[in-house]
């Protein structure tokens, strides 16, 4: 029983991490209708920034996380202004080709700068090790992931629902033409949102170095996972991808624990089943 709860919590931690990594993609896809396969590249950037700051410059871990998010957000902002603006409104094939090309470029750059090997970080001592509550063991780092990512998810949800910016964003997405007619700076809202999504991916990438590993193949290796979260969660809310990421994290971890023989396939099976049951996404209203 205790180990079942440990497995469940491990799954929740994995799901939370997956959520932070992919929520930006659901924003770009759902809100801006851009298929951005390069999303993982921002996660990779955040990961590398974190590794360099921690290992070479000895920056404390929380600061390195912030810097990773900031760097990925800045990169997202610049690339959105320079490149992505040109593919808004183009057909999806163009967007796919463009963004997959970007993934290759960024992978090659990472390979060139940092080498192809898996990067390792040394977590601070307050995050390593394990705790026990009533016989239930949980790694400190995983607990940290659950708390931090939980906060991020809450902040995003209330940001989207309660703030003025959130309201403008939802308006711009619901009907861009009318929003523009009402005087909303739709272009600027999109670039800020894009930067925010990239920054979150950067944060997720930095958080994931310890658990997911980091090498120049990162964006391709996890692209499928991000897409699964967005596909299952539905692409225009925060709660949908959140639930989807949690569900997939738990199913993935639990599957590998109880039936390791087929563990690797379970996440895809879950995706197929969920998509058959709810093709619009978990929480999306049917159109």
């Amino acid at each position, binding site marked *: 029983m205790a180990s079942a709860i440990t497995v469940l919590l491990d799954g929740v931690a994995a799901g939370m991490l997956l959520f932070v990594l992919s929520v930006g993609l659901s924003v770009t896809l759902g809100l801006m209708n851009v298929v951005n396969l390069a999303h993982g590249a921002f996660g990779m950037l955040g990961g590398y920034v974190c590794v360099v700051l921690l290992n070479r410059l000895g920056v404390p871990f929380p600061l390195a996380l912030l810097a990773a998010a900031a760097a990925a957000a800045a990169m997202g902002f610049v690339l959105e202004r320079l490149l992505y603006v040109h593919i808004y409104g183009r057909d999806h094939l163009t967007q796919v080709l463009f963004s997959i090309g970007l993934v290759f470029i960024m992978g090659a750059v990472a390979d060139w700068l940092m080498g192809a*090997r898996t990067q390792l970080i040394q977590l601070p001592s307050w995050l390593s090790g394990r705790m026990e509550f009533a016989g239930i063991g949980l790694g400190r780092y995983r607990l940290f992931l659950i708390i931090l990512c939980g906060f991020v998810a809450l902040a995003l949800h209330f940001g989207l629902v309660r703030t003025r910016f959130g309201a403008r964003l939802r308006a711009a997405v619901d009907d861009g033409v009318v929003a523009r007619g009402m005087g909303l700076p739709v272009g600027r809202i999109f670039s800020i949102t894009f930067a925010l999504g990239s920054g979150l991916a950067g944060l997720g990438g930095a958080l994931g170095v310890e658990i997911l590993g980091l090498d120049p193949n990162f964006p391709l290796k996890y692209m499928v996972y991000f897409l699964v979260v967005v596909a299952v969660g539905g692409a225009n809310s925060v709660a949908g991808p959140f639930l989807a990421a949690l569900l997939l994290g738990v199913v993935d971890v639990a599957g*590998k624990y109880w039936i390791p*023989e087929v563990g690797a396939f379970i996440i895809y099976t879950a995706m197929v089943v969920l998509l058959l049951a709810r093709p619009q996404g978990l929480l999306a209203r049917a159109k």
Partner: protein
Amino acid sequence: MSIVTRRSAITGFGIALATPPLAIPALAQSGDVFRIGLILPMTGPFASTGRQIEAAIRAWLRANPAPIAGKRIEILLRDDTGVAPDVTRRLAQELAVRERVQALAGFGLTPLALAAAPIATEAKLPMIVMAAATAIIPSRSPFILRTAFSLPQATAPIAVWAQRAGIRTAVTLVTDFAPGLDAERAFKERFTAAGGSVTAELRTPLRNPDYAPFLQRVRDARPDALFIFVPSGEGAPLMRQFAERGLREAGIRLIGTGDVLDDDILNDIGDSALGAVTSHHYSAAHDSAENRAFLAAYAAQAPGQRPNFMAVGGWDGMHLLAEGLRRTQGNTDGERLVAAMAGQEWISPRGPVRIDAQSRDIVQDIYIRRTERRDGQLWNIEFDRVERVGPMG
């Protein structure tokens, strides 16, 4: 699909870079040069293997600058990216046909070595396998000689040692690919033959994001020891999570083959590797005059880096080729070279080794090592050894 695209893109790029400065057809005809076509993964996920072997070969050439039997040794390095057997095969063919090399060497992974084997047979070129470790490789061509190791060879001694160290039950955790299954089988065979029992056999997918669920399972099974085999870069996250999950506190010992605690990455893995017991043929901490000479030569070539078991495979491969050339008195006929090299015995930096005359595979001592901290660095300290282990364990 996308992965293949990226890899082939990089391959093309790598070849474009590698070819022009090295293609010097005028030299190919001259009789006083012995040309070795070296095929290694210099980019991609296994670049560390290529880098180590190349540095060791350059170090060997630097330490042995004199011509061998009147021949100057020339290396033609090609990058096969480590993941594309068809590329390895093509490069081997180009080296044999266009560059007229007199030997092939390198070969980072099993599928790559297998892809090049028919070319060696057809062109009658000695093929020195310096890294790839699946047992069957030398049987695929009468021209293959191996200076690396084989998986059953490295695995069997740890199973025997575990039994002697009072370990009665074990769980195996291997990556689900050919070498992993080789290791799993070899360990189980030896361990059960010695009276132990394997209570669970876990296999993780090759592209596995998270070891957590597998390790939790191990923790619940409470064996005396966990035997692991994963590709070398994967060792670090696995060790970390082994420590984080408190498996050691639960009384589970970590054992495995030495490639997981490869000298190249050992210090990056950090303290979670401390106390792990592994079996392998080479540790940079090996105490011998030959190893000290090797370390010095390697440090001169690649300052600040530590050679690993891949590097020693490259170094010994060069030694073997040079000895073969000496014995044929400079005759580069492939069949005569292979005959001259098979059966060779010498003291390698790893200890005494022999190329078995029949199987053309290496026979060597396998050491049992414990990871310890010495002078602020982590080392695999050898504390026991099994002498003259054959390629099948």
